[in-house]
């Protein structure tokens, strides 16, 4: 019973991380129609920035996490004008379809190997941002994990509030519903696209910073997460933010709980099996509307 509770708590923490990651990915897909294969590399960048801030520069943890989010945000700002806009310009009115996938796969390879070239392939250890253990009944959970959950909740709440009430957030939602009409209302499309992409990857960057003490940091740390996030977005319904949130928690808890039944090295298979099953049985996902051809 104790271990069950422990697995449940760990699953919820994992779900919080997945949500941070998958909601960003879903936001980008919903607005730009781009599936960002390089999302995990921004997670890795966040981890590396935290490593530099904490271990090399001895900055306080709060500054490190903020720097990670900011760094990923700034990198993300460059993606639309440098990669996606030129491709759109060449294609003109033709839809890009899967070319975005190939393009961001290239970005992923480029970023991952650049990190490898700059930082080397070693696993970098990062000290915990906070120490100590929170006792919950018969079991305990480290404050580091609590921090992941708390920050993820705050950031996601802030994002939803931004989209709901802020003027720019309103513009983002307008663009996601109908780019042409939004443009006709005087919304600067390129600016909204850049902003959305940057916001989405900034969430991944913060996630990378928060998880760095638990996962260590290495160039490929984010890629498996990207694939899992695909599974999550498909389970939740492509482009559906609430669905992504719900699916993240489901996958996170399922991954932790499955250890009770099968050996832990198969844990990572859960997401992929879920993804294949969902696509076969209910391709629109849990909360998605049936829009799939």
């Amino acid at each position: 019973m104790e271990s069950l509770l422990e697995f449940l708590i760990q699953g919820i923490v994992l779900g919080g991380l997945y949500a941070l990651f998958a909601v960003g990915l879903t936001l980008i897909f919903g607005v730009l129609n781009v599936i960002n294969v390089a999302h995990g590399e921004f997670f890795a960048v966040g981890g590396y920035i935290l490593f530099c801030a904490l271990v090399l520069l001895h900055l306080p943890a709060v500054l490190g996490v903020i720097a990670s989010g900011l760094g990923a945000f700034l990198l993300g700002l460059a993606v639309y004008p440098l990669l996606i806009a030129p491709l759109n310009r060449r294609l003109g009115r033709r839809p890009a379809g899967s070319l975005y996938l190939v393009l961001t796969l290239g970005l992923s390879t480029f970023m991952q190997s650049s990190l490898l070239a700059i930082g080397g392939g070693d696993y970098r250890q990062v000290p915990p941002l906070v120490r100590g253990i929170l006792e919950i009944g018969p079991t305990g959970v480290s404050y580091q994990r609590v921090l992941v959950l708390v920050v993820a909740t705050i950031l996601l709440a802030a994002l939803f509030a931004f989209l709901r009430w802020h003027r720019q957030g309103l513009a983002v939602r307008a663009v996601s519903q109908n780019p042409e009409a939004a443009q006709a209302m005087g919304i600067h499309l390129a600016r909204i696209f850049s902003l959305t992409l940057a916001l989405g990857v900034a969430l991944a960057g913060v996630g990378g910073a928060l998880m760095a003490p638990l996962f260590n940091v290495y160039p490929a740390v984010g890629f498996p997460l990207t694939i899992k996030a695909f599974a999550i977005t498909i389970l939740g319904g492509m482009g559906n933010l609430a669905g992504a949130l719900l699916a993240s928690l489901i996958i996170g808890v399922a991954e932790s709980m499955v250890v009770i039944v099968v050996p832990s090295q198969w844990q990572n298979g859960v997401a992929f099996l879920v993804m294949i099953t969902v696509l076969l049985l209910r391709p629109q996902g849990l909360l998605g509307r049936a829009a799939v051809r």
Partner: protein
Amino acid sequence: MSRRTLLSVVGAAAVLLPLLVAHPFVLSLATQALIWALLASSWDLLSGYTGQISFGHAGFFALGAYTAAAASKHLGLSSWVGMLLGAVVAALVGLGAGFPALRLRGHYLALVTLALAELIRLVAQNWLAVTGGPFGIYDFGSFTGLPASGLARARAAYLLVAVVVAAGIRLMLYLCHKTRAGRGFRAIREDEVLAESLGINTTAYKLLAFGVSSGLAGLAGTLYAYYIQLVSPTVASAATTSLVIGMAVFGGLGTVWGPVLGAVLLFGINEGLRFIGVVYNLVAVGLVIMVFVIFVPRGLAGLRLRREGRALRGDAAMTGAGGSGA
């Protein structure tokens, strides 16, 4: 120079290479380049030519490699049987992946195949009894009946690989240009709904593309296994898929022979970079993918001196330019 003469010149040069160059290292590079060429063109048959985007070819490649290695190691089978088995197993799994693909398009297919490759990697890493886990399979021998060592061996291995690769590519070119299937593939790529309404059996042709493509990717995997003589879970990693897609985009999508060119050149560039001390050569692969997708959609194959007939847009496959796409 027409494409046919160009291809025969290249083919002749490929056969003559082991006679002209008497250096095992160069031959080894050339052999590996050919294996990549088969993998890249098999990806192109499915994704570039038929328009069914696969992000899982590393999985099919690994499946072939592991099947061959395990067959030789645990059952003591000869490499000929191993190659056949590897190709057949990969083709069967490819067909299995093709069934959901009948309902999925574009993004979804790419994501499912990516997950499939990741599952294959997971099995390779954890099924210790058969796959040897993270260390992989080794000590299972090379191609049956090769000379023991030295230049003679390098030459024989090169010729064997060259013949198998050429046969595989020839088969795909034949399918694409000389049979109804080729027209079926193109019709699916250009506009699947229209193709279906014209009475083309898109289901059968899609499955055929899946089977042939994954089978030949598996065959490339078996060649890799017997040539390198070590198969570890890293071959199934997404980096392999990324490299292959990079080769195909570099060479030219939707041509089958363009990716062969792309593979040989990109592999050559990679090894060249390694030679002058740049170890992290996938940076270049990432750059090549991005630059070519944005600015050079037809790849190197599109940079012909003289246009031949009606040239399709190189990336029409992925943009769904034909009509009802997206």
